[in-house]
Every structure is written in structure tokens, then in C-alpha cells.
């Protein structure tokens, strides 16, 4: 499986994502600049964390209009897997590929720590290697991760099983219903504030993030074999 790691001006978790794919799951990954106009030849797209465009205006608001994002939208509409972590999640909601918005953390602090996540939905192509309700140890590092959506969107998220990860023990940012990660209705675009790519080897404190990328790869291989 060949992954595109998109680099926006100000991305800073791009190296971690490339490492997670190449050295964690042993698949192919290449950097793709924000100016790129094609994603031909890629099977999955990864939007990294960081501070694209300095978080000017709102996190993700300007990146959403970069050249590559129209291609990412097309890629997503074709049903191919797109994953955004942290700033990548912010870009996905700004682009309208995921519902809701990410507000400033309730306590105004930039939070950088390891949290406990609960796998709420393991029937996705990103989480099939986890058990339902399994608890994961994954780091977060963000100032604007307070997930917000209106009541109507929330009941839709629940009805369609789109809430994939929640903060299990304590909610670090004030997000609605402890939401840490959601998926779109079609099941191919996932965004989350925590960083699974920073938890792919025990040396870093946890390898719980590894199975996230393994799930993507296994499901891709399974789907390709079916065609």
C-alpha cells in the first residue's frame, strides 16, 4: 500500500507519519507537497499534525484552500482512505470532509500529554485490528482540539456509529461527548486529535498506534483482493 503524506507549510508531524508507515508497518510512503495537483498512484492519504499556515484565521482554514486539497477531496469522494491527525483533523473539518468544528481547548492550555483512548467503533477500515472498547495509550498535543457540533449533527454521528475514539478517563479539551476521533458516513475519512503515529514503538512509550495503520493496510489488501 502506497501512502501520500501531505506537507503543508507549517506541518510538523509529517516525519512521524512517514516513519510510522515505512518503519512501523513496512509499507511505502512519500511526501507530497501542498502544491501538488495529483495523487495518482497513491492508495491512502495522510494529513499530518502541525501548524499549517501558522494557524492563521483558524486552524486548518487556509490549508483547506491549498492546491492539493481539491485532489484530497476527489480522492475521498472515490472512497479511498484519508486520515487526518491533529492539524490534519482540523483541515478535514474545515474542508467539510468531516462534520463539526474544532474550538480552542476549554481551559485555553496547549495540552501535550499521553491520554487513554477508548475504541468506540472497531468496525472501520482504520480500527479493525482493535477490540471494541479497548483502551489505548496515545499522545495528544494541541491547543484547538475541543470538538464541537450541534445537537442534530451529534445525533447523526451517534446513529451512524461515526464516533470512533473517545477520551476514556479524562477529557483534556472539553470536546462534546469526550469525542477524540470521528469518521465520515461513508467510512473512508477519519480525523482524530491524538497522534497514533507517535505511538508505534514501545521505546516511545506505547505501540498502541501501530494497529491503526495495520488496519488500514490489511483492509486495503483485502479490498484489492476482492476486486
Amino acid at each position: 500500500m502506497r501512502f501520500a503524506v501531505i506537507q503543508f507549510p507549517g506541518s510538523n508531524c509529517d516525519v512521524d507519519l512517514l516513519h510510522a508507515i515505512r518503519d512501523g508497518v513496512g509499507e511505502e510512503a512519500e511526501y507530497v507537497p501542498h502544491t501538488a495537483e495529483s495523487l495518482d498512484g497513491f492508495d491512502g492519504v495522510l494529513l499530518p499534525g502541525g501548524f499549517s499556515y501558522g494557524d492563521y484565521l483558524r486552524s486548518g482554514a487556509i490549508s483547506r484552500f491549498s492546491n492539493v486539497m481539491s485532489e484530497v477531496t476527489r480522492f475521498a469522494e472515490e472512497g479511498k482512505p484519508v486520515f487526518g491527525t491533529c492539524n490534519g483533523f482540523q483541515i478535514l473539518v474545515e474542508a467539510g470532509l468531516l462534520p463539526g468544528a474544532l474550538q480552542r481547548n476549554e481551559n485555553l492550555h496547549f495540552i501535550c500529554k499521553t491520554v487513554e483512548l477508548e475504541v468506540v467503533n472497531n468496525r472501520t477500515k482504520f480500527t479493525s485490528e482493535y477490540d471494541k472498547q479497548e483502551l489505548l495509550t496515545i499522545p495528544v498535543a494541541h491547543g484547538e482540539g475541543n470538538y464541537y457540533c450541534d445537537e442534530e449533527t451529534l445525533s447523526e454521528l451517534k446513529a451512524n456509529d461515526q464516533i470512533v475514539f473517545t477520551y476514556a478517563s479524562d477529557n483534556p479539551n472539553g470536546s462534546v461527548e469526550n469525542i477524540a476521533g470521528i469518521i465520515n458516513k461513508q467510512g473512508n475519512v477519519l480525523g482524530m486529535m491524538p497522534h497514533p503515529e507517535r505511538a508505534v514503538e514501545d521505546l516511545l512509550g506505547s505501540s498502541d498506534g501501530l494497529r491503526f495503520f495495520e488496519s488500514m493496510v490489511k483492509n486495503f489488501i483485502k479490498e484489492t483482493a476482492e476486486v
Partner: protein
Amino acid sequence: MYNVKVYVTYKESILDPQGEAVRGAVHRMGFDEIEDIRIGKYFEIKVSDTADRSVEEVIETICDKLLANVVMESYRYEIERVKETV
């Protein structure tokens, strides 16, 4: 030529933690009569005349898509017609 002022603020239903923090500081200054402070963004935009679309249409599209995130923010704008300076 038009001068446009755009104001973007959080919707009433959205908590504004920065505004809350500023209100706390104002209370510590001794101004207890300050009941609420909400922080927003202000834009000054110059728009040239175009025949094919109205300035309102242009500003609203830009606000909806970029300047405000309408999930959590609302906006208002003022348009002032000004003479071209040569």
C-alpha cells in the same frame, strides 16, 4: 470601489474561553459592572467594482467559506462606497 468591514464572532451558544479570561482580568481591575466580553475578528477589505457580481455576494461567499466557520461563528458586515483615488 468599496470599503468593507467584516466582524466575525462566536455564536451565542458557543463558549468563548478567551473572552472569559479577559472578563476575569477586567473584574480583577475592579470593573465589576462588566458582565460579558466576547472576542471576535475584524477584517478591512477593499473591493473593486465588477459588473458581473454584487459586492454583497462576493463578501458573503468569502465569509461563508473562509473568514468564518459557520459551524461555530457568525458574521456581519458593513459596506461603504468610496471614490477611486487616482
